[in-house]
């Protein structure tokens, strides 16, 4: 009897934790599909999500963010903080300790020289490194011994966890990339496609924009992982096809970023072969109000610049009315389902930084009408469109081409028409809209429209750089070739001052307080940014793939080492 219970218990345990019992490569093959195909295996030469995530299977940073946004050490022994002495009091130095005994997939040891080299590689002035912003403010990287890396900053750095943290800045092997510095970086095709790494997998065959064949890293630091011996990482097609391959036909085990209408995903999930999973990060779909006048009648060079304030949207009452007319809960239901939440904040997460502002959630058509009346916009000629001084309240509303965005446009147009605002819709191909070609009138930076809609987020968990995008001098203008991040040309001295203060503050509570205030200044106080939906990520995995933990703070494949076959 006793023996039987014991055996049963053992059996149960092995069912509960198959990963713990597994040995490397025991679970055979796994298929992953990304509907955008990776074109290169290093995040330093391409910052596309697809490239960063594919690379994260092979090359790893010192620490990553987990599914809740907490920092977890990967190659480092621990995350350095002021408390454990890893970060100096003046915030100008951070000291990382590497784990002992780490090996590259080619069997050579990982040393602090590799980490220092990575910084040198990205900070090379002619390299065109895509992650340069992560290394901003670094004055030097020292390597007192083989396992210690000391990073010095020129200014106090309240958030020193940028370089070597997260999927965007993994460690490269010095020996492999030594001759690939600066202008030579693109010539190292072999290294860029087959980087030697510390991650759970190594590249066997890389076909750019098509498919990657990988196999388990023989020198991975955990001898029992990864459970899969080989992996096929296929790219291409579209989100619907990827979803179908995992949820309906079961040909693939993991499908990335299923940007599909909720009912379409629900229908696919009925196929019973897989499960959609979702998680939230900081991505916010928003409407940006143009504070400057984009009328085509203005001369080129003055159009959409601070010289001419917008004829209607410079009035906060108009902006607020436009926001009040929107039913965000309905938008979520139609466009994102379980992968969206209505939000009034530009910074929806992490919790410490998220403002408690929820005023905008309830739709208030009557209130919006009253506000427009108060602002002097009335329908004097009875055509259903408000006007003032002979000018009709007719707005041009642009966004990129994307099925959900076009549905949102149609819905919002109808709500705005209910409050007497006429809307003309325009959609622009994403490769033009998000490109910075100063010759094109259709880029989102140029903003030759009254309102526009897109989504943006910030890397990691600290919103400082993100909030600093709205300072006066960052407005796109002809003199700067229309480059700039302050898309709506919002300009407030008080805001700029507060951003400067945030840059000097180290304590997390104080930082959070300032960040919330900045968030509110842009949203509920001024309505220059009208957040709509806090967009999560939906991916899907087959029912036989275990260990998937969807993470929006870092690469989705951050824990691919723990993936295993559920039997």
């Amino acid at each position, binding site marked *: 009897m006793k023996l039987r219970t014991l055996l049963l218990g053992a059996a149960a345990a092995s069912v509960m934790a198959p990963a713990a019992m597994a040995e490397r490569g025991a679970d055979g093959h796994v298929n992953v599909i990304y509907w955008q195909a990776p074109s290169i295996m290093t995040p330093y030469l391409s*910052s596309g999500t697809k490239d960063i995530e594919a690379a994260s299977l092979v090359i790893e940073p010192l620490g990553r963010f987990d599914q809740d946004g907490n920092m977890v050490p990967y190659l480092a022994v621990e995350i350095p903080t002021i408390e454990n002495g890893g970060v100096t009091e003046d915030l100008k130095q951070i000291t990382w300790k590497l784990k002992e005994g780490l090996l590259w997939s080619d069997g050579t040891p990982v040393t602090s020289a590799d980490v220092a080299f990575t910084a040198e590689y990205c900070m090379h002035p002619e390299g065109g490194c895509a992650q340069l*912003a992560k290394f901003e403010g670094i004055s030097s990287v020292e390597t007192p011994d083989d396992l210690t890396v000391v990073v010095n900053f020129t200014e106090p750095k309240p958030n020193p966890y940028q370089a070597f943290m997260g999927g965007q800045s993994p460690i490269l092997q010095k020996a492999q990339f030594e001759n690939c510095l600066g202008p030579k970086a693109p010539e190292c095709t072999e290294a860029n496609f087959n980087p030697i790494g510390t991650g759970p997998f190594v590249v066997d065959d890389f076909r750019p924009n098509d498919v990657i064949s990988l196999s388990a890293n023989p020198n991975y630091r955990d001898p029992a992982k990864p459970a899969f011996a080989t992996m096929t990482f296929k790219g291409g097609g579209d989100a619907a*096809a990827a979803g179908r391959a995992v949820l309906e036909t079961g040909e693939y085990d993991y499908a990335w970023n299923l940007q599909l209408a909720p009912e379409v995903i629900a229908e696919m999930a009925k196929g019973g072969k897989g499960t959609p999973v979702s998680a939230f990060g900081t991505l916010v779909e928003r409407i940006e109000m143009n504070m400057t006048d984009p009328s085509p009648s203005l001369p080129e060079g003055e159009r959409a610049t601070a010289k001419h304030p917008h004829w209607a949207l410079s009035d906060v009452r108009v902006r607020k009315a436009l926001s009040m007319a929107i039913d965000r809960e309905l938008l979520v239901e139609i466009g994102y389902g379980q992968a969206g939440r209505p939000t009034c904040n530009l910074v929806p997460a992490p919790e410490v930084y998220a403002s408690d502002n929820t005023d905008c959630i309830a739709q208030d058509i009557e209130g919006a009408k009253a506000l427009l009346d108060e602002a002097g916009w009335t329908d004097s000629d009875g055509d259903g469109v408000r006007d003032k001084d002979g000018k009709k309240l007719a707005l041009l509303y642009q966004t990129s081409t994307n099925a959900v965005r076009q549905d949102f446009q149609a819905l919002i147009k109808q709500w705005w028409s209910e409050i007497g605002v006429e809307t003309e819709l325009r959609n622009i191909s994403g490769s033009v809209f998000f490109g910075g*070609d100063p010759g*094109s009138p259709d880029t989102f930076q140029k903003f030759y429209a009254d309102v526009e809609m897109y989504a943006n987020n910030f890397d990691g968990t600290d919103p400082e750089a993100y909030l600093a995008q709205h300072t006066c001098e960052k407005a796109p203008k002809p003199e700067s070739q229309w*480059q700039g991040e302050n898309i709506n040309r919002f300009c407030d001295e008080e805001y700029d001052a507060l951003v400067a203060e945030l840059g000097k503050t180290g304590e997390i509570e104080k930082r959070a307080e300032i960040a919330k205030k900045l968030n509110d200044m842009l949203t509920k106080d001024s309505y220059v940014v009208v957040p709509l939906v806090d967009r999560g990520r939906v991916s899907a995995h087959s029912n036989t793939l275990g260990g998937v933990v969807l993470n929006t703070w870092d690469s989705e494949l951050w824990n691919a080492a723990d993936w295993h076959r559920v039997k």
Partner: protein
Amino acid sequence: MLTFTIRRLVLAVPTLLFISLVIFGLLMLAPGDPMAQVPLTVPPEVKQKMREALGLGDAWYVQYWKWLRQFFWVEPRVLIDAIFGTEFAAGELRALSWQTRSPIMDIVVQRIPQTLWVVGTAYVVAVLIALPIGIYSAYRQYSLFDNVGTFVSMIGFSVPPFFSGVLVIVIFSVQLGWFPSIYDTTHKVTDWDSFMIQLRQMVLPVMVLALQITAQIARFMRASMLDNLNQDYVRTARAKGLGERVVVLSHVLRNSMIPVVTVIALGIPSIFGGAIITEQVFKVNGIGQLLITAIQANDLPMVQTLTFIFAVLIVMFNLIADVLYGILDPRIRYD
């Protein structure tokens, strides 16, 4: 005819150079920026540095010259090196894609097998089906066969592959589970079994593509046959007592081939050009998918190279068509 061919070949050189210049100008003029796919979290200063690293800061004629040199001088030598193991092109900078930072021609070579397998097969299948259908439909105009053929081919042509592709996936992959919905480009044919796997994964994309091509060629074949079936020479041939098969298949068919040859010659370069939408739907990732992703990413050198290769094929096959005209109808003379 020989002098004509030689003259045209000589003329092709300046033509192609001019075409390459026009394509380049078009791409320079087109709005778009290779940084469009870079996340918005990357600050503009960094993007500017990345653009400079791509050589975007140079004047347009410098960029054009660089491409010309790489395509006409460096790449042929690389090819020679690859074949003979020489080192003519050592140390030369090859034409690199902006997305992958790797030599464009390597990727093109990598993509050719699946493109030929799928699009090439579809073309051959389509021509083999279309010609008999077109001939018989014309011969029996307004018969049941003709009407059914017309109906099917017109619907086949008016239903775009973004719909028909998904439809066959839903039917044959999701519901019936007969064929895979995703094409495996790493699959190698080594024996009978692997050949069958290859066939299975080709069925759906070939079906969708062949439907479109068949419709087109069959319609032109039929129309041209109809024009010729009533000509005097057909009556003469019959009067001579020639068999019906000989009259139709050698006399009428030969004289009806001119438009069909034109259509096929226009179509063959597109085998190389790939089938953008069908490739996307079935994840074949051939040349068509390469071109469309390059356009979306504003990968100028890649788009320029692919379109230029395409232009070479177009000029070549149109020349072949012109030569074939002369063979099909010796009265056509170009001199």
